[in-house]
């Protein structure tokens, strides 16, 4: 497809990964184990998964319909608990807020737990340029940080790495034995970060949910690094998208199991922490300050589209990545986006510009597997189709597809024209088939030498 060739090497990267048998094996194994566990967990816990999805989508829609009111309510209640709430229109403002807070507290070392919002604003690079060391504490994030990579997957950042590769990496960077097993590697990460939690000046986290009625930040995780990041340093900074709001505490009874089931195939994650402000008068410990940065960065643009606003229901579970045949084939890094896979291909063109990112909508077979698994019922494949349409209407899809479609529409109106188009096709087959890019990789199907009517007649005669 010609439209794929346009953007910065996407097609090249995708093609290279698609032909990498090791990559294929690692990802297939990881996703197969997720899928098996997902089915078991879902069946053991939910009697009615479809109704749970409906309800979750309904609650999120309710939030989106009254988003400004909920955000103000959240701000009011979080402030009453002693947290400071800041707003960021874009990545640059959000980065500046974090740098200002770090400087205000003379921070040299920041410890982080996994957060896609901070990936979205390239926070680590910014802080490091300002002389503030940043340590990722989630094991998967630590692996990609040490390897100098971006997360491969929004839930499992190091899904693409084999244990042998990780052992080699930890050997080089942390002095761990080359033959260390996953147990040994995990313990090495634990030792490596233990000091950091108590020595860091700032703890930076994301948020899975913001509770409007409680003014609370909710974070789920399995390792405990998030709890340590929030509890140990004297300043806790939260970076959260404005769509993370849930109205009330009781909504967690649905959203925590839903996210855990879709995200990691667990009934509940090991830890779900609900934080309301810095250390309170009746508390023994905790940070002296808590700052919550509410990030727009294109989300209000998504909200303003009646069709695309549903993409803000997303709870970043990663289920659509796991289900997507394209993601499984080309991997998370080929996209060069913060959010890979179907949800990333839906929202990235709107967050970062259709001109540069419209090719992502073509990175889909439109099979709908993503839509089937989405726990908040985002109509992902329809939105991918809508992105294609928008790219063409906006004149951003190049000349080829609009011209090809015009030719097709012209031919389909008249049987004679269709026959003529076929004749041209046959001529092209004889002269130029070898020049088709696809011909290098697979057999290009041949046009039938007989028309449908001729075939029909022949069929009737031989009866």
């Amino acid at each position, binding site marked *: 497809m010609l439209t794929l060739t346009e953007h910065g090497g996407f097609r090249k990267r995708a093609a290279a990964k698609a032909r990498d048998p090791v990559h294929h094996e690692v990802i297939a194994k990881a996703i197969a184990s997720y899928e098996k566990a997902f089915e078991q967990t879902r069946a053991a816990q939910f009697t009615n998964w479809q109704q749970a999805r409906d309800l979750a989508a309904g609650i999120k829609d309710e939030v989106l319909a009254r988003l400004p009111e909920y955000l103000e309510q959240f701000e009011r209640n979080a402030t009453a608990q002693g947290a400071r709430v800041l707003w960021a229109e874009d990545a640059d403002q959000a980065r500046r807020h974090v740098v200002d807070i770090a400087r205000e507290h003379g921070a040299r070392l920041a410890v982080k737990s996994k957060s896609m919002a901070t990936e979205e604003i390239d926070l680590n690079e910014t802080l490091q340029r300002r002389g503030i060391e940043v340590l990722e504490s989630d094991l998967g994030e630590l692996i990609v940080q040490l390897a100098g990579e971006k997360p491969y997957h929004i839930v499992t950042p190091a899904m693409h790495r084999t244990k042998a590769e990780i052992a080699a990496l930890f050997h080089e960077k942390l002095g761990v034995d080359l033959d260390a097993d*996953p147990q040994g590697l*995990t313990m090495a990460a634990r030792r490596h970060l233990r000091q950091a939690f108590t020595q860091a000046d700032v703890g930076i986290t994301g948020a899975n949910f913001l509770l409007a009625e409680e003014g609370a930040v909710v974070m789920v995780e*399995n390792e405990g690094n998030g709890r340590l990041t929030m509890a140990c340093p004297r300043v806790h900074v939260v970076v959260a998208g404005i769509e993370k709001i849930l109205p009330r505490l009781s909504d967690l009874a649905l959203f925590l199991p839903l996210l855990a089931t879709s995200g990691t195939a667990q009934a509940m994650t090991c830890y779900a922490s609900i934080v309301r402000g810095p250390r309170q008068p009746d508390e023994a*410990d905790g940070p002296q300050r808590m700052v919550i940065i509410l990030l727009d960065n294109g989300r209000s643009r998504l909200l303003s589209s009646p069709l695309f606003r549903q993409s803000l229901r997303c709870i970043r579970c990663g289920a659509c990545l796991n289900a997507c045949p394209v993601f499984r084939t080309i991997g998370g890094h080929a996209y060069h986006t913060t959010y890979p896979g179907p949800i990333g291909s839906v929202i990235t063109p709107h967050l970062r510009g259709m001109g540069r990112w419209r090719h992502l909508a073509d990175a889909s077979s439109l099979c709908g597997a993503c839509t089937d698994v989405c726990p908040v019922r985002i109509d992902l494949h329809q939105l991918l189709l809508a992105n294609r349409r928008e790219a063409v209407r906006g004149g951003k899809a190049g000349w080829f597809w609009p011209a090809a479609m015009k030719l097709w529409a012209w031919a389909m109106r008249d049987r004679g024209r269709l026959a003529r188009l076929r004749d041209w096709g046959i001529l092209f087959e004889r002269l130029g088939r070898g020049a088709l890019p696809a011909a290098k990789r697979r057999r290009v199907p041949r046009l039938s030498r007989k028309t449908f009517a001729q075939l029909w007649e022949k069929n009737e005669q031989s009866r």
Partner: protein
Amino acid sequence: MNSRDKILARLRATPRPAECAPAHRLADRAIYHDCDGGSEELIARFGARLTQLQGEFHRAADVKAAAEVLLRITDDSAGGRCIAHAHPLIRSVLDQNERLAEGIELPDPGTLDSPDFAQYEIGITAADYLVARTGGIVLHAAGAGGRRMSVLPPFHIVLARRDQVVSSLDEALARIRETSSGSGYGTIITGPSRTGDIEKIIILGAHGPKRLAVVLIG
């Protein structure tokens, strides 16, 4: 106009869907498998779930028996220093056994900010609720001796009474809402710390406690 007002203005300027009635709320049981029954059934379910998640579940008829259980499981991790939250329930258990009380540090809550938790092998806290359906332990900081005691030491022991077992997360959250409205920090613990970040192989004790035990009294 500052960025707050700009963002809110942008959000307000977007057309709202005609229908924005509050989402219909279903009873918990319309979605999840039932988790009913008498308290013994709920306790059995909680214990089974926790064990399945590789947590340990101990029962003790009274505080005296609980002290014996505590002595036994803290002896397992020999030599490590042990810290406990000065909660009435924990105090009443420690009072039962001198040898137990000797081995466990019970700092005044006001001084909990200072100790270097890295040196403790065991942290003992109370809990607010135990969730039968998921095997979850609900605790808030004020009731659990702070934000760190239940996560920094490699072995976390929870003491709870049988009347703290509730059927579902829904019920636990409803009770939290009624009782601890001013609380700053709460966490729901479901099994020992774990990671699956390397080839989806589950390893316990990633950053939080590798060992988690619940002692249910009554």
